[in-house]
């Protein structure tokens, strides 16, 4: 494929545009000003289908579905011209360009999203620009998925499974943690996966969580934990697995058994209508039954799962105090990841699609403690 035929308007993007236009009409909003960067690329991707890598970008989305894309990196602007049909502007001064665009558009109601990340230079002129907070207009659209979007999440999940097999094969004594990541990235890029959220843990009881690679060398008996989160056409799917370098010890097997039980309990609670809180409680109750309730607190773990889609860690966060109800076609991961005081940090989790009666699991890998 070359630049001239790189413009693919996906069915998922067409579905998103329809939903966005309907939401704007219902909220009586004329234009949306959407911000994005490589960290929070989701809102911008939703509205423009452009996956930003360098710099910052703003998309001005009109109610008729047309988009002007302002990007402050010239190479990104060139790529956006090749990949999208939008009007694309390289704006060295993003704030000035956006202001000019809004003022030229006249007296119309503009909603910005995600508002908390909008450049201050725009937010401080909110009154003059008739700019209000439109975050809540888009967040529900990011959480729920149209069938056209699920195609991409399914594909990302399948690639995550294949990626994990490569990870497992490469996890040999003497390998450095960043070399494992390099092999995964080689595979992902060769499959057209543009992004991957991935952290890793290597070692035993001293490991309290996962982080980027630090140069640790794998040795026999190490637990190797990872979250693989490949991004396909903008959509992420996540896989959490733990392996042991060599053969797992009895203690490692037994400890991991509790995580399998917790994941099963969490998944059994999933169906449209239940809250994220109920799923978290089902997972955490397993730990409490084993006398390890302390290890489901924020001291040891962040969340017990989360939504996933155009952002690798979106709402709803699966926590006992999150009352957001799950809806059919929501994509999420359930993962009872935490520290186990006898063996160290363990992870296990699968991306699922919420259904009216339960869930559809997207990974075909066994939910087992692997060995390399």
């Amino acid at each position, binding site marked *: *494929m070359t*630049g001239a035929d790189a413009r693919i308007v996906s069915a998922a993007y067409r579905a998103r545009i329809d939903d966005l236009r309907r939401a704007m009409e219902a909220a009586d909003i004329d234009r949306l000003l959407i911000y994005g960067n*490589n960290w929070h690329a989701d809102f911008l991707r939703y509205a423009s289908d452009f996956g930003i890598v360098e710099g910052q970008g703003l998309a001005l989305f009109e109610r008729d579905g047309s988009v002007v894309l302002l990007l402050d990196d010239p190479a990104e602007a060139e790529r956006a011209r090749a990949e999208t049909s939008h009007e694309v502007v390289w704006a060295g001064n993003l704030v000035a360009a956006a202001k000019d665009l809004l003022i030229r558009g006249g007296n119309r109601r503009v909603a910005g999203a995600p*508002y908390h990340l909008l450049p*201050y230079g725009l*937010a401080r002129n909110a009154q003059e620009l008739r700019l209000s907070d439109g975050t809540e207009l888009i967040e529900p659209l990011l959480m729920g998925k149209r069938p056209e979007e699920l195609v991409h999440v399914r594909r990302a999940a399948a690639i995550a499974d294949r990626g994990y097999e490569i990870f497992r094969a490469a996890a040999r004594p003497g390998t450095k943690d960043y070399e494992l990541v390099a092999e995964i*990235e080689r595979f992902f890029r060769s499959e057209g996966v543009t992004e991957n959220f991935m952290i890793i843990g290597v070692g035993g009881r001293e490991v309290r969580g996962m982080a980027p690679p630090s140069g640790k060398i794998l040795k026999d008996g190490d637990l190797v934990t990872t979250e693989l989160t490949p991004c396909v056409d903008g959509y992420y799917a996540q896989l959490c697995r733990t392996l042991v370098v060599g053969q797992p010890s009895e203690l490692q097997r037994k400890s991991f058994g509790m995580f399998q039980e917790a994941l099963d309990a969490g998944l059994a609670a999933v169906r449209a209508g239940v809250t994220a809180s109920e799923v978290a409680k089902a997972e955490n109750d397993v730990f409490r039954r084993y006398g390890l309730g302390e290890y489901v607190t924020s001291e040891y773990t962040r969340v017990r799962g989360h939504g996933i889609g155009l952002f690798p860690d979106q709402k709803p966060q699966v926590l006992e105090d999150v009352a957001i109800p799950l809806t059919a076609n929501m994509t999420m991961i359930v993962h009872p990841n935490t520290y186990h005081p006898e063996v160290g940090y363990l992870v296990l989790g699968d991306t699922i699609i919420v259904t009216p009666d339960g869930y559809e699991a997207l990974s075909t890998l066994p939910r087992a403690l692997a060995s390399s």
Partner: protein
Amino acid sequence: MRRGLMGWSEADLPVAVLGQRLSRLQAALESKGLGGLVLYTNIARPAAVSFLTGFTPYWSEGLLLVPASGEPVFATALSKRVSGWIRSVMPIGAIENTPRPAAAIARKLAEQNIGKVGVLELDQFPAAQVALLMGEGGAIAIEDATALFRSVRLRVDEAEIALVRRADDLARHCLTTFNRGDDARRMASDIEARARLAGAEEVLVGINPDLSRSGAFLRSDRLGTVGRYFAIRLSLALKGSWVRRTITLSRDAEQQPQFAAADAAFARALASSSAPTAVKALQHGFPGRITAWTVEASIGSYPLEVVACSGGTGAFSGIVPISVVSAEADLNGAKWQAAGPVMAEAPPE
């Protein structure tokens, strides 16, 4: 996200060097009557905080307060569980893990009776962070201090030059040793893997698969077979130091000598002591017509941003000590692209 090797070492970035950078900034703050400087970081805009502390977040965001005197404070939305990791890659400053970094910085300012601070790139700061930073009723006065930061940032030291040179050596190595073929996606993945296997912190590979059709560097999802001549752009970070290299390759043997001559002229231009000299060298005595050029540098929170370009004005009009010059040329009807760094010598301390 950052998922390559991330680590700090005294040999690469001595604490004394960070101390010198901070001291220069603190002296500048003092001279302007500012109680401190607040800087923002995330994976898209990590450079300023990395310059002062060595730290780059792998995800999420954070704010660094450099008071006019005393220890810097880094407040981040990364959870407390990763504070050990942050400490391992950020050798100086206090760390505060909080879901509201700006509120934590505002508290610190109040504790230290600081009523007025500078902010790097105020207009670009995330709106919610500014609101929290100013505190209730606008208790903290803020002003843009981008120029002040630049005055400090543009003084290069040996540590920075050494890291950029290493990053550039790695980039050149990857671009000369990768497995060539006609599958652009495979080439991109091989280049990226080589860089990561050698310890790169971040790697961005773009391929312009057919220079006769487009000027865009595409990512792996849009890549297929390359055309008769194509260009590869490798952007690479090593311990927070970024470099870009672009090369043009031809599958047409007849065209290769022409491209080789252009490459040689470009390499000579990069050996200049400054970007303007390099650009001038390209505009005179280049075996083809230069159709566009840009100069990028790290002068604020961006790893690389355009500071000068053909047919326009960049973000900065002064001389930058380390830059990346990119050029596009017409070689008798064939498009050619290249990029690489231009580095000055470090002045004596």
